[in-house]
């Protein structure tokens, strides 16, 4: 994975009212980068769910806590094909995530809750979590369609 540069850097507080602001920014960024309508919605959903998880679980609903959202243009390989994509790094300083919960829950049972991680996994090409010092780092990656590949909207 090659770093190609920062596209957008947002610093916000853990206030749920800010979620719609970040969604708007990410939606416009993905449109500008050339993602399909479906992929724009997917990336926006994944970032929104990641932020929701930070607010609810890392900061336990406590407002005014710092969160950073940084978006980078990346180059990498997917299925042996060189691809360009968008990497989004979310950093918070709350409680560490339990790695066993990264898989998300089974969808066989109809019950509220536990869907956020499933949405993130289903919406992105790759995601990775790490604890670095006192901060949580979540990296989300979505590739642009390779040239010559049509995609639905």
């Amino acid at each position, binding site marked *: 994975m090659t770093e190609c540069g920062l596209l957008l850097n947002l610093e916000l507080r853990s206030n749920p009212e800010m*979620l719609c602001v970040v969604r708007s920014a990410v939606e416009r960024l993905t449109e500008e980068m050339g993602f399909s309508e479906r992929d724009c919605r997917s990336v926006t*959903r994944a970032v*929104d769910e990641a932020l*929701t998880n930070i607010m609810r679980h890392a900061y336990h609903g406590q407002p005014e806590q710092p969160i950073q959202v940084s978006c980078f243009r990346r180059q990498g390989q997917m299925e042996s094909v060189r691809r360009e994509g968008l990497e989004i790094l979310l950093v918070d300083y709350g409680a560490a995530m339990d790695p066993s919960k990264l898989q998300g829950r089974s969808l066989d049972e109809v*019950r*509220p809750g536990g*869907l*956020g991680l499933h*949405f993130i996994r*289903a919406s992105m090409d790759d995601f990775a979590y790490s604890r670095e010092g006192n901060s949580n780092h979540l990296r989300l990656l979505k590739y642009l369609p390779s040239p010559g590949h049509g995609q639905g909207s």
Partner: protein
Amino acid sequence: MQISARRMEKITIFDVTGDIDLANSPEVRKALLRELRDIRTPRVVMNLRQVRYIDSSGVASLVEGLKASRDSGSRFILCGLSTSAREVLQLSRLIKIFEIYDSEEQALAS
């Protein structure tokens, strides 16, 4: 997000406008549970025609409404889903669990 109710005999229609996310999904949950669990309205229709986005907490509120409707023997119907709202119900494999119609007219005629 704004939520308002139109009440008719044995039917309540909720009109929701705006995105449903962590900032306001408790409000949706509260309105649904009041109608389905406390008042026990026989049929509750949620018109989502003007809702562009629903997150996982919004889906959780709808699931709570569904469970309350099953407990009270009433019907909980969704209509007017946007592409994005339909996608999250598909992703969570709930699209076939909910009773869904394209329009409010179809929901009322059902």
